[in-house]
């Protein structure tokens, strides 16, 4: 495996050749997206030479909504509902990171029961996001059953989140100071039962999808992103863990109660598309394990929220807090000038980091590998555009 620099040089050489041969009939330029069934809210143009992709040009920005600028005109509580919009399936993790940053600026600590509940909500949210991602991965590879099963099982977790917060996907549950409300009556038992059932379903996913020889043929050894390249490109989350780096923000910089929870950072060393598809499933299993521990260790009574003024003013300063989202490290850099509104909010999202690996991996691969590589990068177009 050649080093990153060599590959970049090679790609540059190729692209030079391509500019020379633009008029050549040999190359065909294909537009993948934004109205292509295999792209999402995103477009990339590729040039194919026969069945091989020789040039990739990602073109994000179709769903840019200016969330960072919007933050400057609203106070910290008003920011919560619109910040979660980019990835509504993973809303609790996004608001988690922002809440941590605001709490750091204001200088409060969340009550212990509140910490447990919001960790619980964010784990449920992570599961629901990963299932949605997995469903799309299934249909991208032409496996219609793998589209329907996770999309159906996601309802279990959506139901739990609905009982918890009142909304199915746009929860706005984690807010600065804790969580919006306490867990409802009988929630623990229900949650435990559904999560236990969900773990049995994960085994069935392996039977029908991951152990399928046709899928293995198609994804194993495809789109290899070595450990060194992964670190140099700065990818994160499951993509990084699939390249053999056991990096998880919950383990490296434990926030709230995660230092009391026992879990393993799941990673694989095969570095290929199959590993990137399989690591999220291992993560989901760990999440189930974490949820059980959270339910077990949660204090039976106590406040869930540190009461804050609606227009809470923070001391001037800046902070950066990050959490492990479904797509990797997700951090919020919040700058405050002493007014109730943040002076500047900058999000560092896993999706955009993982996008950087896309041209690198697609160049030189086959056209048939395009969906298998593209969606294995755990890239959510809307989050990258924000």
């Amino acid at each position, binding site marked *: 495996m050649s080093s990153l620099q060599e590959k970049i040089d090679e790609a540059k050489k190729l692209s030079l050749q391509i500019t020379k041969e633009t008029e050549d009939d040999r190359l065909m330029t294909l537009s993948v997206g934004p109205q*292509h069934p295999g792209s999402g809210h995103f477009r990339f143009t590729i040039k194919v030479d026969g069945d091989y992709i020789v040039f990739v040009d990602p073109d994000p920005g179709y769903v840019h909504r200016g969330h960072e600028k919007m933050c400057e005109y609203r106070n910290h509580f008003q920011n919560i509902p619109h910040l979660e919009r980019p990835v509504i399936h993973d809303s609790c993790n996004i608001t988690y990171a922002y809440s941590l940053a605001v709490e750091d600026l204001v200088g409060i600590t969340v009550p212990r029961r509140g910490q447990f509940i919001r960790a619980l909500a964010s784990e449920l949210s992570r599961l629901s996001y990963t299932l949605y991602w997995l469903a799309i991965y299934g249909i991208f590879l032409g496996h219609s059953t793998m589209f329907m*099963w996770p999309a*159906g099982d996601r309802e279990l977790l959506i139901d739990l989140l609905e009982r918890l917060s009142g909304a199915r996907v746009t929860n706005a549950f984690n807010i600065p100071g804790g969580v919006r409300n306490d867990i409802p009556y009988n929630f623990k038992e229900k949650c435990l039962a559904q999560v236990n059932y969900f773990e049995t379903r994960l085994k069935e996913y392996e039977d029908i*999808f991951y152990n399928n020889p*046709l899928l293995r*043929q198609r994804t194993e050894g495809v789109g290899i992103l070595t450990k060194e390249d992964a670190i140099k490109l700065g990818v994160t989350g499951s993509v990084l863990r699939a390249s053999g780096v056991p990096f998880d923000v919950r383990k490296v910089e434990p926030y709230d109660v995660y230092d009391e929870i026992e879990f393993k950072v799941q990673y694989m060393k095969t570095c290929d598309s199959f590993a990137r598809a399989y690591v999220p499933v291992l993560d989901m299993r760990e999440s189930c394990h974490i949820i059980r521990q959270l339910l077990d260790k949660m204090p039976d009574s106590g406040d869930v929220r540190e009461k804050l003024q609606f227009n809470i003013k923070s001391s001037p300063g800046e902070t950066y807090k990050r959490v492990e989202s479904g797509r990797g490290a997700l951090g919020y850099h919040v700058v405050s000038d002493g007014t109730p509104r943040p002076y500047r909010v900058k999000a560092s999202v896993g999706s955009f980091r993982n996008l950087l690996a896309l041209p690198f991996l697609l160049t030189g691969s086959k*056209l048939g590998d395009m969906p298998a590589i593209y969606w294995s990068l755990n890239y959510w177009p809307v989050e990258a555009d924000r």
Partner: protein
Amino acid sequence: MASLTPDFRFGNFVASIVWVLFVVLALVTVLILPIIFFTLFYIPLPVVDGQVLTPYLFFSMMVDPSRTLPILQFFMHTTLFKAAVFPGFVFAALIAAVTIFVERKLLAKMQLRVGPLYAGKVEGIFQLLADGLKLLTKEIIVPSGADKPIFWLAPIMFVATAAAVVALIPVAPGWVVADVDVGLIAVFAILGFFPLIALLFSWASNSKYPFIGGLRALHQMIAFEIPFFLSALPVVLLSSSLNLTEIARSQYMIWNIFLLPINAFVFFISSLAELERIPFDLPEAESEIVAGWLTETTGMIYGLIQLGSYLKLYALAGLFVILFLGGWYGPQIFPPELIPGAHESNLPLLQMLALDGVYNAITVNSVFWFLIKTIFIIFLMLVIRGINPRIRIDILLHTGWYKLIVLTFINLFVVLMLIYGGIIGPEGVISIR
């Protein structure tokens, strides 16, 4: 603009269709029937039961039931009836329609959902009708720069070619549209047209994704045509005939699948590839090349191609049954007469009910077993769609050119050895005849 009006009622919609039907019927009565009668006046008419079948006689069967059966019997043995209705197009199209519905419901059950539910009140049985009506009413968009004659012609050619394959499949002894002596070769010859049509259509569409899809279709079908043909060759050696009826007859004692299991497997895989079904639906791979060579199809052009591909599905499943599953042979479960003693009695109504002269126990039994086996094979082809992802083109070509061809060659030599060793074959120890 094609949009629903706010006061849209399904009843009114049906009423409008009924109104159109009424107008058509009125036109038929006033204009077309007289034209037919005048035309029939000048051409020689067939003789049924010693009487010339005039139009008047033909319509007299409505009031005289005893006339119905001979006329029916006469029509059942005309070539037109065979080609258009029974072993031919309508029969195959009905099976295709049932297949589409069953496929949707079956996949839905596999995927923990309900499938079509609303059209037709009962489990959505009219979903296909609704889809067909929708496709009929849709505008057909021809891409700018498309090669128009080929663009319009290719879907019709696709259906016609599929129907030509159906015409060669016998469903019961004597019940085949075209009883060709080299039936098996004819089937393969006609199947060879499909990649050409796909490539022509994709090229005529003047679009990039269809072009890639067409090239993929060509590669795929060439790679799988050879194992497809080679896997059918030992069957010919065993039955020493290329006629499909004879091949089915030769399996009277023992089905070929027990003698040639590897060939049956290779044939099944190759026919999946030939049908462009998952896991071999590369020419239509939606996440890579939008809809492959069907990207620019709209309205009834799409409908025709779908109809053609399901006709092809029935034809290849039927071919599998003829070659490996003993054709129409099975235990006799239908009685020799529908109502015992109806033939001797002089009651015309009883004879009508017993379908005297039309009903043939052996034929009905043959068709029944042929259908059961064909539906089982179609079911196997459908289930595979629910459990497999799509495979990549290089793996597909590798499978076709290396693995399947080697398998068929090995099996061919094994079969030759057994035949010359006098173990199987027409004069073997395990006698087939």
